[in-house]
């Protein structure tokens, strides 16, 4: 059991091969638990997608019928559209905001920076459900904080029915998600900004570049890794958006008027755990998994490309 020096193979670096049971023992809880609660459900998920079930009870084999159903169901297509729109919005609206905040905050003194960092991050502490519950009240027409706030500043929006007008449901979800996640992503960007080489920026400034050019051509490229990581994380998270629209639109189980707030996972939740078809739920899960898989592939590609630079 003791690592015997005499048996060490000659390698320039690296650990000697450990002969003993310790790593196996240490990893056994993980292996056992994963085998039971991950691997088995994973294979069941493959199988379950070809069945139709009545909750955890009866089931009937339907082959590819679940996927055909999804393909034809207009509600599912709407969910796919909504979720994709949300993912795009979070990349092109939410992340630039996070970046802007990080840039603004980067130049400050440490204590003040710490204070603002805490403030902007605080919404993320409380979780999607509580945020959804809070915002479902803040969006009350005429009396809600959001409506009144917009009215005070912009003289518009007092009567906006954020949660019942199909045109405003997705914007409402976006607003709530901005509050929730801008601070979260800002922290990543802040940390990345610390690692940017200041001399490069100084050199660019001396060369006469304006702040925007410095940012776009010097700062941003140095933060490449983190930006790619955050973008991918953001998109993958967006495709799994669930608790926020569910609590905002709790009366219609997350659907919203004209299905305006429906996302892939609220659709899954409805079909699998309310209407009771676990098989269809698995099929939707697979669609989401495939989408995320392709996005992860893109990340790996982008990551490699970035490293080659």
């Amino acid at each position: 059991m003791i690592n015997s020096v005499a048996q060490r193979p000659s390698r320039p670096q690296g650990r000697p091969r450990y002969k003993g049971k310790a790593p196996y023992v240490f990893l056994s809880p993980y292996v056992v638990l994963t085998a039971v609660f991950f691997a088995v459900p994973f294979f069941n998920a493959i199988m379950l997608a070809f069945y139709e079930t009545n909750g955890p009870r009866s089931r009937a084999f339907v082959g590819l019928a679940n996927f055909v159903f999804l393909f034809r169901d207009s509600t599912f297509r709407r969910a796919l559209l909504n979720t994709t729109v949300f993912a795009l919005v979070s990349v092109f609206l939410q992340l630039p905001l996070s970046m802007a905040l990080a840039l603004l905050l980067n130049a400050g003194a440490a204590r003040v920076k710490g204070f603002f960092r805490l403030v902007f991050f605080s919404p993320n502490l409380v979780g999607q459900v509580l945020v959804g519950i809070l915002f479902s009240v803040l969006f009350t027409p005429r009396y809600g904080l959001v409506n009144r706030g917009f009215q005070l500043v912009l003289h518009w929006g007092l009567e906006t029915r954020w949660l019942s007008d199909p045109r405003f449901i997705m914007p409402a979800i976006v607003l709530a998600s901005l509050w929730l996640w801008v601070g979260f992503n800002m922290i990543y960007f802040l940390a990345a900004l610390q690692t940017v080489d200041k001399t490069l920026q100084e050199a660019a400034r001396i060369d006469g570049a304006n702040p925007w050019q410095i940012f776009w051509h010097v700062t941003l490229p140095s933060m490449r890794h983190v930006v790619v990581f955050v973008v991918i994380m953001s998109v993958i998270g967006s495709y799994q958006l669930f608790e926020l629209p569910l609590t905002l639109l709790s009366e219609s189980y997350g659907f919203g008027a004209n299905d305006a707030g429906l996302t892939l996972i609220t659709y899954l939740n409805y079909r699998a755990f309310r209407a009771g078809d676990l098989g269809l739920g698995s099929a939707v899960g697979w669609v989401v998994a495939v989408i995320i898989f392709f996005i992860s592939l893109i990340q790996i590609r982008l990551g490699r490309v970035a490293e080659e630079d």
Partner: protein
Amino acid sequence: MRFANNFPYGRAPFWLLVIAVVSVIVRVATAHRPEARPDLVMVTHTEAQFDAYRKAIPRFEREHGVKVQLQFANWASLQARLQNAILADTEVPDLSEVLEGALGFFTRGPIEDFGLLDLTDRLHADGLDQRLVQSRLSVWSARGRVYALPHDVHPVMLAYRRDLVEALGIDVSKLDTWDKFVEVGRQVSRDLNGDGIVDRYMLDMRYDGNWTLQILMFQQGGQLFDQQGDVAFATEETAQLIRWYIEQVRGPHRIGYECGWGQPVVKAMTDGLVLFQWAPDWRSWVLANEAPDLAGKMALMPMPAWTPGGRRTSTWGGTGLMIMKQTRHPELAWQLAKYLYFDTADLGERFRATNILPALRDAWKLPEFDAPFPYYSNQRIGRMYADLAPETPPVYSSPVDEAARTGLDRAFNRSAAYYAQHGEAGLLDAIRANLAEAAEDVRRLAGREKILAKGKP
């Protein structure tokens, strides 16, 4: 604190560990024990019914020497939780009330999966199936068997401002068909003070169809599903109905206006903005409560028929009582259900409290049903509803009931949007196409249900 500081993982994990251990001990010590359960637990979701049963239950407890607990729960939270609990074999109440249209939710898949007690034979043995309004059994049946007891019938009449209608010289006894009603309605619905806005409408009608459309469809004999559970709303009659409805609520000579719920309805009736209002039995009581100032000025009349001599009522809503198969005391539960729903002693008083007509025909002989109702100009509304009750149309249930109603709404809204753009030209064809598309969507879902119903365990 030294121990905390020396804990290998650090202070935070240490304190979390302490909290974890303490909370587990407290949780185990205070865990709820299933033996503490009373003999029967029943859940209801309507305040009025909760009050009525609370008064009735003590007598049952004394007569049978048992303990019955009545709980009040919000229907939306109850529905999905109950079904999931049934399917997962976790704790469920013994009896639960259920809303119309929701029975299908609980009768999905093969019959062995149903969490509800089949009541058909018991009803037959007690002769109750002959003494109840036949059409109501359809609401609470699935695959030909009855799974819940009908609480009510809910025949629909129209409530109207008798004083205003008489002042306009309208004789409501002549309004016995919709054609005549619409004709009079067109004369009535107009701009009274020349400001371009219509100030008086004939009838409260939902802008997007919804329940108003469904009431009219059922009156015509239309259905969301047929007895076999097949989608049945994509018919020529329903298409014509939608066209008629769009005309009445969106057309240039419209007679319908959406009043909403609660205060806006009271205001509309008080101001005379709308002359006629939908009044199933339960709503006649709601209106009387919410607009007490109109006492004596209101009256009820049966719905106009679609054809001369045709059906003059429809139905809206309903409550039933299910008994869970998992109950430990099925016979006792059945006794309680019969007692609460069909013990005639209480039914008269309940009618007086809520205006709701029970499904048991024998009860209609009670004196309360012949009492004059001052709010509605001393009409004997109990008798009026009771006379209409045998004509109420059946409504067939299905596990995809929710989807069907949403589908019908969608078809209506698309057709109304078409009308807004293109007017009458091609409207009927558009309606037919929208209905067919909506029906196809629901058929796909219903088809899945059929596969599951045959399925193997």
